[in-house]
C-alpha cells in the first residue's frame, strides 16, 4: 500500500513537471519571432531586446524552464509583458480563488440536485417522472455552457417573472404528484408514518416554492463580489448564476451515471434480499444501493472537476467574472505569454493534484481495492 502510494506521488510529480515543461514549450510553437509578434511593428530595438530578456528567449530551453520553475516554486511567475505591468503571481492569487469558488459551488449544487433525483428516478425507473427528468438531463448535456449561461441570463435576469412562474409550476407539479400518490395509495394498506412523511414532503415543497418565488433575489448580470468587499450574501448572489449554469450540465452528467448505476444495483440479489427482509424502500436505497454506487460518482465527479475548470473559463467570459478563465482568455488575446503560461500551468497542476486525490479516495472507498493492496 505504501509502495503503491509512493509510486503514485512520484508519478504525480513527474506529470506536474512535464505539464509545466509543456507550458514553457508553448512559446516554441509561436510561428515566427515571438518578440516581434508581441510588440508588433514600430517597436524600438531597446524594447525588442528588453522583451527578449523578459521572456528569456536568449536562453536554452532547459535553463529557461529551470529559471521559470525556480521562480514558480516561490510564487514568482515573472511580470506581465502587456501594460499595466504587474506581477503575474499576484494576478493569479487574486483570480484563482474566484474560479475555485465558482467550481466548488457548482459541484455542490449539482451533487445536491443529482443525488436525490437519481435515487428517485432509479426507484421509479420507466415512470413518467423518470422519463421527464432523464429526458431533461439528456437534453442538458447537449447544451454548451456558454449557451446555457445565456439562457440563464435571459430567463433569470431579463424575464424573472417567467422564471418565477416556471418555479411555481414545478412546485405545483411535485405537490400534485404527491397528492396523486395518496389517492392511488388509498387502495393499498398504508402506514401512518409513510403518510406523515409524504405530507411533510408536500408541505416542504410548498413552503420552499413560495419562499423562492416571493423572495426571488435580484442577481447581478455580471461581475463578481468578493466576500471581503460586499459580504457573504452579495458574494453568493454574484457567484450563483455562473455556478448554476455549470451545475445544469454537471448535475445532468451525475444524474445519468448515478441513475444507471443505481438501477443496476437495485437489480442485484443483495438489494432484493434487503427488500425481502421488509426494509422500507428509502432505506434500501440509501443504505444498500447508494453506497456501492458512490464509487462511480467519485470517479465521475473527479472527471467533472476538469469539465468545471474548463467550464468556468466560459461562464467567466459570459458573466464578466474576473477569474482565471477571464485572465487567460484576455492574456491570449493580448499575447501576454507569461500570464498564459503561468495560468495554464497553475490550472493544470490544480487538476493533476485533484485527480490524485480522487484516486486516493477511490482506493479507500472500495473495500475490494483496499483489500488487494494491504
Amino acid at each position: 500500500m505504501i509502495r503503491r502510494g509512493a509510486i503514485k506521488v512520484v508519478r504525480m510529480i513527474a506529470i506536474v513537471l512535464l505539464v509545466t515543461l509543456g507550458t514553457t514549450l508553448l512559446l516554441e510553437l509561436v510561428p515566427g519571432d515571438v518578440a516581434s509578434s508581441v510588440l508588433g511593428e514600430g517597436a524600438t530595438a531597446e524594447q525588442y531586446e528588453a522583451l527578449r530578456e523578459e521572456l528569456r528567449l536568449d536562453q536554452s530551453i532547459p535553463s529557461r524552464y529551470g529559471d521559470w520553475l525556480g521562480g514558480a516554486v516561490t510564487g514568482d511567475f515573472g511580470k506581465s509583458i502587456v501594460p499595466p505591468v504587474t506581477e503575474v503571481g499576484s494576478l493569479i492569487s487574486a483570480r484563482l480563488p474566484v474560479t475555485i469558488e465558482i467550481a466548488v459551488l457548482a459541484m455542490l449544487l449539482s451533487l445536491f440536485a443529482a443525488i436525490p433525483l437519481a435515487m428517485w428516478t432509479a426507484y421509479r425507473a420507466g415512470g413518467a417522472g423518470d422519463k421527464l427528468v432523464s429526458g431533461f438531463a439528456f437534453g442538458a448535456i447537449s447544451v454548451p455552457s456558454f449557451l446555457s449561461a445565456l439562457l440563464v441570463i435571459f430567463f433569470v435576469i431579463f424575464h424573472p417573472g417567467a422564471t418565477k412562474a416556471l418555479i411555481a409550476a414545478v412546485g405545483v407539479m411535485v405537490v400534485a404528484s404527491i397528492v396523486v400518490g395518496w389517492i392511488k395509495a388509498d387502495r393499498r394498506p398504508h402506514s401512518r408514518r409513510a403518510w406523515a412523511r409524504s405530507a411533510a414532503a408536500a408541505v416542504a415543497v410548498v413552503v420552499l416554492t413560495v419562499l423562492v418565488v416571493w423572495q426571488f433575489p435580484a442577481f447581478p448580470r455580471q461581475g463578481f463580489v468578493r466576500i471581503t468587499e460586499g459580504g457573504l450574501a452579495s458574494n453568493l448572489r454574484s457567484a450563483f448564476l455562473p455556478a448554476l449554469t455549470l451545475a445544469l450540465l454537471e448535475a445532468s452528467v451525475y444524474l445519468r451515471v448515478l441513475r444507471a448505476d443505481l438501477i443496476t444495483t437495485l437489480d442485484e440479489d443483495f438489494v432484493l434480499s434487503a427488500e425481502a427482509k421488509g426494509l422500507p424502500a428509502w432505506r434500501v436505497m440509501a443504505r444498500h444501493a447508494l453506497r456501492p454506487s458512490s464509487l462511480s460518482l467519485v470517479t465521475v465527479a473527479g472527471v467533472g472537476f476538469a469539465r468545471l475548470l474548463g467550464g468556468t473559463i466560459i461562464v467567466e467570459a459570459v458573466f464578466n467574472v474576473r477569474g482565471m478563465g477571464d485572465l487567460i482568455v484576455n492574456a491570449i488575446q493580448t499575447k501576454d505569454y507569461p500570464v498564459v503560461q503561468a495560468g495554464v500551468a497553475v490550472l493544470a497542476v490544480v487538476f493533476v493534484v485533484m485527480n490524485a486525490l480522487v484516486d486516493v479516495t477511490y482506493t479507500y472507498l472500495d473495500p475490494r481495492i483496499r483489500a488487494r493492496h494491504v
Partner: protein
Amino acid sequence: MSDATIDRKRLAIAVLALVAGGAAVWVGSALLVDVTAGWRVPVILVGIALALIGLDRALTALLRRRIQIALVLSVAWLVAIVAAAALADFLPLSESLRPDQTLDVPARLRPDLFSAHPLGTDNQGLDILGGVIYGARVSLIVGCGAVLIGALIGGLGGIIAGFKRGRTESVLLFLADLLLAFPPLILLLAMVAVLEPSVRNVTLGLAVLSVPIYLRLARATTLAVAKREYVLAARVLGARNRRLVVSEIVPNVLPVVIAYSFVLVAVLIVAEASLSYLGLSIKRPNPTWGNMIAAGQESFNRHPHLVFGPGIILFLTVFALNRVGEAASSKWSRRRR
C-alpha cells in the same frame, strides 16, 4: 374492449396531443407577438414537447410497435445538416457573408419561416440561416476532421499498446496520461494562444485532445478482445501477428471506436463553438455558430433570435450526435456480449 378500440382511443389521444402541441407552437410563434419572449419561449417549448410525444404515440399506435422517434429525428437532422453544409453554395440563401451587400436589408429582422430570412437577420442585416449553414460547415469539418485524425492515431496507438503490452504499452499510456493531465479546454486555449486561429489549426488542436481519449478507449477494448478465444484460435491456425490484428482485433475494436466517435464529434463541436464564442477561433466575417452567438449577445435582450437561432441549431446538432452515439454504443456493446 378489443385491441382495435384501445388502439383507436390511443391514436385519438395521440393525435390530440400532436394537434395541441402544434397549436401551442403556432400561438407562441405567430400570435403572441406583443408578449415578451420570456413567456413565448416556454409556450413554444411545451408545444414542441407535446407535439413530439403526440407524434411518438401516434406512430406507435399506427405501426403497432415502438419506434424511437428521437433517434429517427436525430438521424434525419444529421443528414439534413450535413447535406446543407455540403451544398451551401448551391442553396437559394440570402446574403450571409458580405455585410456590404446587405445595406438595404433591415437588421435584426424577426424570424419568419416563410420569408427570405427564415431565421431572421443579424446586426448587419446578414441572413442568419445562411450564416448558420456556413457555420455548420466549419463545425462539421473541424469536429469530424479532428475525430478522424484522433481516431486514426489514437486508435492505432491503442491497438498496438493493447496487443503488444509491456514497455510499448507503458510508454504510450504515460504519454496519453500526460495529455489528459491538462484540463481539455485549457490545453486547447494554450494551443490556440500561440497558433493562428484557422480551420486547420483548430482541427489540429482538437485532434490533439482526442488522441489520448481514443488511445485509452482502443487499448481497453483491444485488451478485452485479445482475451477472446477466437484470437487464440486464429493463432493456432497459424495466423501471424499482423493477421491477428487486422482480421481479428481491428474489426471488433472498430465498432466501439465508431460509436464513441459520434459523442466525441459532439464534444468537439461544442469545444470549437466555445472557442469561437470567446473570439479565439475562426473570426468574422467567416460565420461560425460560436461567433454568431457572441455577436448576437449584445442585444439579445430585445432580439433573442440573434442568440437562440444559431443556439438551437447548435443544440439540435449536438443532441442528435449524442443520441445517435448512445444508440450505436448500446447496440454494439450488446452484440459484443
